[in-house]
């Protein structure tokens, strides 16, 4: 390669040669990997003779889920059976990226979804075809702006949800390393689906116990809490006195002691 007045090869003994080469190698490797996985991760929509959504879902399931959940979704060592969990469970778990599970730790974490919405719908259709279960919800059905009541939602949230997810939906600790995740930035349909399917440690909130209208109120309250600016200043995480105490010892007392040192140092 010729860069004009000096060949690249003349730089081979430059002291930055090695680091630059390593960076170039890493970038190439990474790019190759992501391109390759993007290519293989995409469904073979075009190369397939399958027509129905269910068939498609079955294919994706066989490739990405059956190793843990069993080829007929009958369950395996660590993964539960999916017969009867309904499209709602799949839409929630796959749509929030929890499934496929990244590492077999205490619980599935919300992360960037591996499957796109079409693939998720296919999986949901397949699992729904195995046995009746709660149907998936879409955001258009969730008329929480019109039918929900924010104040009522707050009351319901504090009685039914805050003990795990904290008063502001920031999440909280469960036993043995499990946790109730933060509810900030969760799509309304995923909130609804979690309420009706009770994923992992979360219990089920039946429609007769918390009616659909009440569920819409909870969603409306959560969205209001999410968009509510911090009315007193920086929020310190909305987790209560622990962070407030940390701030007072670092910023508060720290600044004051710093000023006291300045105050008592002899002027030059």
């Amino acid at each position, binding site marked *: 390669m010729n860069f004009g007045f000096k060949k690249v090869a003349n730089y081979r003994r430059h002291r930055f040669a090695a680091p630059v080469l390593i960076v170039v190698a890493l970038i190439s490797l990474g790019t190759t990997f992501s391109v390759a996985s993007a290519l293989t991760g995409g469904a073979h929509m075009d190369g397939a003779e399958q027509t129905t959504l269910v068939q498609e879902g079955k294919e994706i399931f066989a490739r990405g889920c059956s190793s843990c959940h069993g080829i007929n979704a009958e369950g395996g060592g660590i993964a539960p059976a999916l017969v009867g969990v309904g499209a709602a469970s799949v839409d929630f778990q796959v749509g929030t990226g929890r499934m496929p599970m990244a590492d077999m730790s205490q619980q599935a974490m919300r992360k960037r979804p591996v499957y796109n919405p079409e693939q998720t719908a296919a999986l949901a259709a397949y699992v729904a075809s195995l046995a009746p279960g709660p149907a998936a919800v879409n955001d258009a059905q969730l008329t929480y702006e019109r039918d929900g009541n924010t104040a*009522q939602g707050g*009351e*319901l949230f504090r*009685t*039914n949800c805050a*003990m*795990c997810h904290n008063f502001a939906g920031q999440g*909280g600790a*469960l*036993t*043995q390393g*499990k946790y109730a995740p933060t509810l900030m930035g969760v799509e309304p349909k995923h909130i609804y689906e979690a309420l009706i399917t*009770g994923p*992992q*440690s*979360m*219990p*089920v*909130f*039946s429609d*007769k*116990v*918390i*009616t659909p209208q*009440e569920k819409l109120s909870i969603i409306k309250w959560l969205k209001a809490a999410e968009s509510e*600016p*911090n*009315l*007193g*200043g*920086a929020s310190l995480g909305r987790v209560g006195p622990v962070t407030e105490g940390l701030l007072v010892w670092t910023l508060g007392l720290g600044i004051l002691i710093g000023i006291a040192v*300045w*105050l008592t140092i*002899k*002027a*030059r």
Partner: protein
Amino acid sequence: MSNEISKFSDPGLPDHVHRKTDIDPKAEKRAEQQVAILFVLSALCTVLTIYSYLFIKTDTFVFLPIMGDTNAHQLFLGIGLAGSLLFIGFGAVHWAKQLMPDTEVVALRHEMRSEDVDREDFVQTVKERAGTAGLGRRSLIKRSLGLAVGVIGLTPLVMLRDLGPLPKKQLNTTSWSKGTRLVTDPGNKPIHVNDLEVGAVAQVLPELPAGTERTLENIGTDAVLLIRLRPEDFQLDSERLSWTHEGIIAFSKICSHMGCAVALYEQQTKHLLCPCHQSTFDVTRAAKVIFGPAARPLPQLAITVDNQGYLVAQQGFTEPIGPSFWERSS
């Protein structure tokens, strides 16, 4: 061991080092101006404070990095107030450091102890005058005074009696009794046995007679958590099993440790966690304590269904709910 004689001697206060403002009149003038600027800044901040209070609407928001959307009224009012105070402080301190004399001054301490002659006089005075009062000799007076002063202290204690009623049996009673229907909290809807799926929970309260208002004291004793498991999940003796219905089990929601609401149910492990002190209860074994400082399981409420299928209590609680107390026998 070093003794007093060969210890290092005190070289005395170090020589005073003059500040630039002591030597250089230009530096002094500059310092004076700096102090003045600080005080003027304070005044300007006061203007900002008053302006913010009167003219920035309370629903104005401004976006800031890190802090996000922030209430402008609150922010500028506060920063104005903070600035008006801080600059007076900085000005005063800068003035002291740069312009006021900074030669160290020495003052002598005096022993705290009074002079011997004063102490003797004091003792003499007290002795003489106590003698004239005669406390030492007049034992009748001494004893009767002791009696009067001793018992008068009881009056304020007795006068506090009406602070509250005697507990009597109140710590043992709740609103639950045979046939009381379980209703949702909030909402007061009765719960049918088919309303709960396996893995579902419900926050419940007792249905109160028509016209009765539910008080916070009621909630503090009556709150119950309803959980549905599969019947085969239970590891209960036959009596406790008979208190459940088709896999539905009910516990007092008031923690047996210190009274917080225990409503955190982990569906997969079937454990209840109290967020206050992390007491963990095993639902399959009648809320037996498996971790944490609680010493007793949560009291179980015996439930069944009425002839329409709605969940009702078979009886009230068989033990006091909530934290322990002296009169609790178990």
